[in-house]
């Protein structure tokens, strides 16, 4: 076989190797980035607008406040252009928040398409994060549930393996409400991980089966 043929074959293999789950993983990254940006912007806006209206920013809707600012007690003097600049920032924050919502919605749709059973059991966002940490649906389906249970808690897990620290009880699946609300979190997390691993296997190995 000539080099030319190797290159052609490799191109074909690469195109076939990338499945929809890879798109899903990249989308999770986007959602995480947008979330981070929204958090930072809103913290920043809170500080800046807090100079002018210290009382309302404590628990009000920042974007609304910034668009209709009103000087409050303990607030400093601000000119029109000062407030105009803050308004611009608030508008960006508004659109970032909207973007986050839209991306999350799209992520749920992708999740239903790629791994409907995992989506049902773990929820769209937790399921998608697990897929990201595992590296794809195939790897998630091949993982033992004990591993799925601690995905996202690698730091604690390796601390446990190298020192005599206790093992972590949960990783990203903690965000699932059945765990964060449970009384016995370790038990709940173990059980949820077991169900997720079954769901992932059904999704990967027999996608048409009813769960």
């Amino acid at each position: 076989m000539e080099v030319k043929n190797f290159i052609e074959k490799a191109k074909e293999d690469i195109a076939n190797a990338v499945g929809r789950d890879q798109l899903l993983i990249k989308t999770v990254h986007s959602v995480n980035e947008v979330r981070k940006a929204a958090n930072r912007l809103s913290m920043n806006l809170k500080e800046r607008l807090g100079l002018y209206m210290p009382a309302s920013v404590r628990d009000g809707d920042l974007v609304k406040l910034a668009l209709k600012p009103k000087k409050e007690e303990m607030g400093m003097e601000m000119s029109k252009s000062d407030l105009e600049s803050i308004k611009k920032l608030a508008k960006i924050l508004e659109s970032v928040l909207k973007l986050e919502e839209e991306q999350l919605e799209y992520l749920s749709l992708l999740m239903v398409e790629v791994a409907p059973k995992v989506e049902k059991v773990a929820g769209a966002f937790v399921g998608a994060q697990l897929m990201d940490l595992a590296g794809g649906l195939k790897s998630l389906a091949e993982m033992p549930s004990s591993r799925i249970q601690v995905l996202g808690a690698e730091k604690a897990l390796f601390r446990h393996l190298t020192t005599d620290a206790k093992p972590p009880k949960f990783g990203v699946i903690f965000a699932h409400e059945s765990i964060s609300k449970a009384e016995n979190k370790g038990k709940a997390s173990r059980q949820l991980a077991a169900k997720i691993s079954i769901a992932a296997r059904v999704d990967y190995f027999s996608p048409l089966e009813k769960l």
Partner: protein
Amino acid sequence: MKRIKVLGEGKKKKILVRNSTPGKTFFSETERDGWRILSPYNSKFGAAIMKGLSENVIQEGDKVLYLGASHGYTVSFVSDIVGDKGLIYAVEFAPEVAKELVFLSEQRKNIAPILVDANQPKNYPEIGKVDVIYQDLAQKNQAEILIKNLKFLKEDGIVLFAAKARSIDVTMQPSKVFKGLETILKDSFSGLKVLILDPYEKDHAFYMGKSKHLK
């Protein structure tokens, strides 16, 4: 015509490789007068040369089976060293990084990219025998994979093996992991040389040896 040279001593040591596509670089590496500088921090091959590996282990015209080609940074330099008469079978399993490798292969005439799991040599296309096997994989069974691939090596061929202690066992001391690897490799190789790649690569060792060819 020399294709690789090492200049300077100690901290000023530099590895230069003649660029077969002068004026064109692929990984934002520095190029001077048609020679590219091989960074020991980006390439375990480079790090091994800094730590005492002879720069002439891979020679012009060699056929190389390169396991774990990744983006192709080291591959691009090996490609310059073996020249047009040589050939590199660059094995990489991860499609994401293999894309870069394919773009590189299109610029060179002597890189054959193969998207296959190095753990399953039976899935390789027909490649024949090679002069050098170079392996740089972050797998738990690195040594086993290397031994599986030995059937592609010519009788007097050499093996270059960059081992990552952290992927074999994170909880074990790297020096112990390297000792263990050495005992495994001694059975299959003669004249085994070991280089510790610190400070260029943390917890990595580089093994060089000749295949014993038991069969």
